[in-house]
C-alpha cells in the first residue's frame, strides 16, 4: 500500500507469488512460441543461432488450416458486428433504466456462464430440427451470446465518459434523442466500440466448444487445430498456435493502451 506497511520481506513474498501467478498463465504459451522457432522436428527450445521461421513459412501451404482460418475470420466478423451493435443498444438501455438496472445487467451477463458444450449442443439440435444448414451464420449464432457480455461491459464502461451534464446541455440547446446520440454520445464512446468489436472478434476467433456442434463441413480454426494437435507432431501447429496467441495478445494490449488515453479524459 502507499504507506508501505508490508515491510521488505512481505513485499518480496507478495511479488514472488504474483509473478508465479503470471508465470502459470504465460510461461507455457511463450515456451510454445519459442519452440515454434526451432527448425528441428522434435519439440524443444532452439539455440539462439538456430532461430528460424521455417514452420511459419510452411503455414501458407496448409490448405486445411488456411480454409479454416478464412471460415473463422468470417464467423468472427459477423459475431463482432452483431455483438457490438446489440451491446451498444443494451448499454444505452442500461443508462436509461433506474430500478431495472441490476436485473438487466445480470440478464446480459448470464449467457457468459452457460457452458459452451451445452449452448452449442442446444442450438445445433434445434437448428437440425428446423432444417437450418450449418454455416458461418449458425456458428456466429452460437458465438454471439458468448461475446456479448464482454462487449456489453466494455461499452458500458466507455459510457462513463458521457456526463449527464453534456446530454442536458445538448437537450437545452434543442437536440433531440438521435442528435444527442450522434453528436455527443457516439464520438465519446467510439474507442469503446472499437474495443468491444476487437474483443468480440477475438472471443469468436478463439472459441472452440460451441463451434464444435455448430460447424458444417468447413471447420473453424480452433476445431481444425484441435484435430492437428491430437494427430501427432507437425510443428506447423506450434507456429500457428504461437502466431494466434501473439496476435490476440497484441490486439488486447493495443486496446488497453488506447483505453487508457480515453480513460483519463473520463476522469
Amino acid at each position: 500500500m502507499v504507506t508501505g506497511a508490508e515491510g521488505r520481506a512481505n513485499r518480496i513474498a507478495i511479488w514472488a507469488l504474483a509473478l508465479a501467478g503470471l508465470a502459470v498463465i504465460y510461461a507455457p504459451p511463450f515456451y510454445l512460441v519459442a519452440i515454434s522457432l526451432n527448425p528441428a522436428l522434435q519439440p524443444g527450445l532452439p539455440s539462439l543461432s538456430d532461430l528460424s521461421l521455417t514452420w511459419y513459412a510452411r503455414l501458407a501451404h496448409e490448405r486445411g488450416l488456411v480454409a479454416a482460418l478464412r471460415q473463422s475470420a468470417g464467423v468472427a466478423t459477423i459475431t463482432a458486428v452483431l455483438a457490438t451493435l446489440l451491446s451498444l443498444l443494451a448499454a444505452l438501455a442500461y443508462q436509461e433504466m433506474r430500478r431495472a438496472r441490476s436485473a438487466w445487467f445480470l440478464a446480459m451477463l448470464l449467457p457468459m456462464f452457460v457452458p459452451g458444450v451445452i449452448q452449442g449442443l442446444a442450438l445445433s439440435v434445434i437448428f437440425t430440427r428446423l432444417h437450418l444448414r450449418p454455416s458461418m451464420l449458425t456458428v456466429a449464432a452460437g458465438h454471439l451470446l458468448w461475446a456479448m457480455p464482454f462487449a456489453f461491459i466494455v461499452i458500458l464502461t466507455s459510457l462513463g465518459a458521457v456526463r449527464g451534464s453534456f446530454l442536458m446541455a445538448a437537450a437545452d440547446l434543442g437536440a433531440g434523442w438521435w442528435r444527442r446520440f450522434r453528436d455527443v454520445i457516439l464520438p465519446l464512446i467510439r474507442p469503446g466500440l472499437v474495443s468491444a468489436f476487437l474483443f468480440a472478434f477475438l472471443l469468436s476467433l478463439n472459441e472452440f466448444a460451441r463451434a464444435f456442434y455448430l460447424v458444417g463441413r468447413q471447420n473453424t480454426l480452433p476445431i481444425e487445430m484441435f484435430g492437428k494437435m491430437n494427430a501427432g507432431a507437425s510443428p506447423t501447429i506450434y507456429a500457428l498456435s504461437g502466431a494466434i496467441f501473439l496476435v490476440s495478445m497484441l490486439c488486447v494490449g493495443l486496446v488497453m493502451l488506447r483505453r487508457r488515453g480515453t480513460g483519463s479524459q473520463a476522469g
Partner: protein
Amino acid sequence: MPRLLLIVLLPVLAVLVLGVAPLLTVTTWSFWTWDPATYWIRPEPSLAGYGAILEAGRWTVLADTLGKGLLAALLCLLLAYPLTYAIHFLSGPRLALLLLAAITIPFFTSSLIRAFSWRLVLGRTGPVNAFLQELGLVARPLDWLLFSDFAVMVGLVASYMPFAAFPLLLSLRRVEPSYLAAAQDLGAGFWRIVRTIILPLTLPGAFAGFLFVLVMVIGSSTEVQMLGGAGASIVSVMVNDVMRVANFPLAFAISTVVLVVLLALVLAGNRAFRLARLFEDPSW
C-alpha cells in the same frame, strides 16, 4: 417509455432466441421418451434420461466436476490475492496498467492453445521433467505430470485465474485508504491489517471470484480434453461422449442438471454479494 422499449428489443430478442429458448427446449426435451424407430424423442413424459445419470458411474463425474471446480477456485484465489494486491498497492500507474493488461489478455486468447502449450511443458521430454532430472530430484521422467488430474488442475487454474483476479481487484479498489492509514497509525502490522481490514472488505470480491471460477470450471471441456488422462472426464466431456452415441435424452438430462446448478449458483451469489454491483463501477 416507447424509446426504451425500442432500444431493449434487439438485445432481448438475441438473448431469448439464442439463449433462453434453446436451453428451455432442451430442458423440456430431457423429460421426453427416446424413440428407437426415429432415432429421436417423442413427447411422452419419461425420466429415463435422469435415471441414466445414476448409472455407469456418471454421477461420480458430476461430483468430480464439482470437486475440481471447488479446488480450482480455491487455488485461483490463492494466486489472485497476491497478484491483485501487487497491482493495486505495490505498483505505480504504468506497472499497474501493464499487469492489468496481463490479467485481461487471457480472456481473449485461446484456451485451447494455452492448454496445448501445457502439454509441451509437462510432457516426458518437456522442460519441467528435464529440469527435475537435471537437479537430480528424479531419476527418470515423471509420468503423472501430463495426462493426469494434476495436469488438468494446472490447466484449469491457468485458464480461469483471471476470473478470480478481476472481481478481487475491483473490490480491492473499494478499500478506503484512510482505514489502512488509520490502522497503521494505531500500530497495526501488515498481517493484522490484512486480517482485520483487507480480507473482510474484499470478501464479496473473493466470493465473486470463487464463484466465477467454479462456474467456468463446471462448464469447461478443453482442459480435460487436452490434458486429462485416459478415461478422465468432466461434465461437458461426458455430454460430448454421450452425444457420440446420439443418446439425446441423457445428454439433455445432464445439461439440465448442470444448467440448474449453475443458475442457482449465480443467482444465489448475486443475491448474497450483489455481483452486478461489483461490476457497475465505471472506473475501470
